[in-house]
């Protein structure tokens, strides 16, 4: 009996000390994050593939070229961005600043985060329709449903093409995910273009819901109109047409939103302490610059080859060596190249 008790006590002690040890490690890790030096650089994965590809490219360079460990924390945009502000996340490779405008500018003004580079700003967003809606698709035997549809304003003439199943007789335009900043812009466009008269302004709730609804319509060859943006796997793999709007004009945009969307800066942002903790990495990140097209190439590769974001990143780095090597000093570029 006594032996048993001793054995149990010993086991408990071992387990407890093991726990204590891992806790201790965790603490020292975060202590370091607060002060000088850092071992592990944490990137955020806000949930979409291009973000993962850019993470993977940066991770390869940071790990192989600069010798830091990296880690990725996944979550929603809001949650991961909050993590960046708090310092639980060090690097945000793809901050779609317009969608989180308020908290983004607040965080910059408060000095919680630093914007180090614009990853790309040549992206598109707005209301898309599958191209076959306008032009038809002979291969699939789809007749053009709205051959004269060109602009967002034209939509009001096509309620029966984009019929709302829950409200027959009126059309349905799928808006941006609830709570995104663009949602309000699209609300305003509804008013100013007079879409209200014939179309319903539908709140889809989430990005995933938009994709599922669009995919369903696309596979069935049905009409669909709604908000999306590029570069994404969706716009890279489906043949979609962005409906036109008057050219972007800042004053007009501020007043009525009745223009194209302003170019949305997709930035690389870091937690405020990172420039001190890892100046070399921040130096590299401040040179990080791609484009929508470059990003979509990786997404198309992923889709066509059923590849993971890591594989796509690898492929991309081999394909575009001249681009990423220009972001880092020569010796770093050499070590990364060897590791690829």
């Amino acid at each position: 009996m006594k032996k048993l008790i001793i054995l149990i006590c010993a086991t408990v002690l071992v387990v407890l000390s093991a726990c204590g040890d891992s806790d201790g490690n965790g603490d020292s890790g975060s202590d370091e994050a607060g002060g000088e030096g850092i071992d592990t650089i944490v990137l955020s994965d806000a949930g979409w593939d291009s973000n993962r590809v850019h993470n993977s490219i940066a991770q390869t360079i940071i790990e192989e070229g600069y010798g830091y460990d990296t880690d990725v924390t996944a979550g929603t945009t809001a949650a991961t961005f909050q993590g960046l502000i708090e310092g639980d996340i060090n690097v945000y490779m793809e901050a779609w600043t317009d969608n989180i405008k308020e908290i983004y500018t607040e965080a910059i003004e408060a000095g919680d985060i630093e914007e180090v580079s614009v990853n790309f700003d040549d992206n598109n967003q707005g209301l898309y329709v599958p191209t076959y809606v306008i032009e038809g698709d002979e291969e699939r035997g789809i007749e053009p449903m709205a051959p004269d549809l060109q602009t967002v304003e034209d939509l009001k003439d096509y309620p029966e093409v984009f019929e709302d199943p829950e409200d027959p007789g009126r059309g349905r335009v799928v808006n941006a995910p609830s709570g995104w900043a663009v949602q309000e812009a699209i609300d305003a466009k509804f008013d100013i273009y007079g879409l209200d008269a014939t179309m319903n302004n539908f709140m889809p709730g989430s990005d995933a819901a938009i994709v599922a609804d669009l995919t369903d319509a696309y596979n069935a060859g049905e009409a669909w109109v709604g908000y999306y943006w590029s570069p994404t796997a969706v716009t890279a793999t489906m043949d979609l047409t962005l409906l036109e709007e008057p050219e972007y004009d800042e004053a007009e945009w501020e007043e009525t939103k009745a223009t194209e969307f302003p170019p949305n800066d997709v930035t690389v942002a870091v937690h405020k302490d990172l420039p001190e903790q890892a100046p070399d990495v921040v130096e590299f990140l401040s040179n990080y610059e791609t484009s929508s097209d470059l990003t979509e190439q990786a997404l198309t590769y992923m889709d066509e080859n059923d590849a993971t974001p890591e594989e796509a990143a690898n492929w991309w780095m081999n394909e575009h060596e001249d681009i990423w090597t220009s972001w880092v000093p020569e010796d770093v570029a050499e070590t990364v190249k060897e590791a690829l």
Partner: protein
Amino acid sequence: MGNFPDIRTNLGDYADQIVSFLDSSLEGFFDFIFFISSRTIGGIADFLTLMPWWLFIIFIILVGWYFKSIFSGILYGLFVFLIGTFGLWEDMMTTIAIIVTAVLICLLIGIPSGIWMAFSKPVSNILRPILDAMQTMPSFVYLIPAIFFFGLGNVSAIFATLIYAVPPVIRLTELAIRGVDKDVIESAESFGSSKLQTLRKIQLPQALPTIMAGVNQTTMMALAMVVIASMVGASGLGEQVLVSINRIDIALGFEAGISIVFLAVIIDRVTNGIADKFQKHRR
């Protein structure tokens, strides 16, 4: 070294194929369900929003008074009034319409299934693990096929809510009917009652309090789904919570969240009260 051998089962692909198959072959059936559900939600929502606000509050007070106490009635009225002051009156009505529709469909499916399970051991054995799976599968997994069947909006939300919320009423109906005293049934049968008569006159009334507990649970679970359902385009209070999550808007999140809590309290107490009334009638 320790790698798992290169064997691949494509269970997910089969699920994908089944969904595509159902989507194309049962289109008419889904359209019919879509039509019925969307009209029901629309009708209830229209009725509720057309009703003057004070009439609705008086109605809530009376319901609370009748099933619980005058104090509870006034408290519930106050809750509803508060939700209105948050600017969420119409969202509340939409949410109520979705929940009422979902619960109605749950009862239509759940009570007969529960009775069937109570009478047939094999059916019970087959359905039980399925019910478990329905409740444990992460909700978003079946929200996506729901969009394929019903498109974006309230009907998909109802479908998702249904899968999550129907098991309790099925289980408790089965349990309740099985639990009815054997002697009572035997004596009824010895007096020449048919199976259906026994069910209607003896078993169901005896089982009602337990079935009501199932209805209560089902309703609460439907309410718990409103935020998740809003991710496929359901409107109402859940959508407001979702907006606040996307914007990190603590104020809106709290107001919409507490409104859902208020609704939950009212629905929970009232359905409990109904169950108590049945209990008293029996004695």
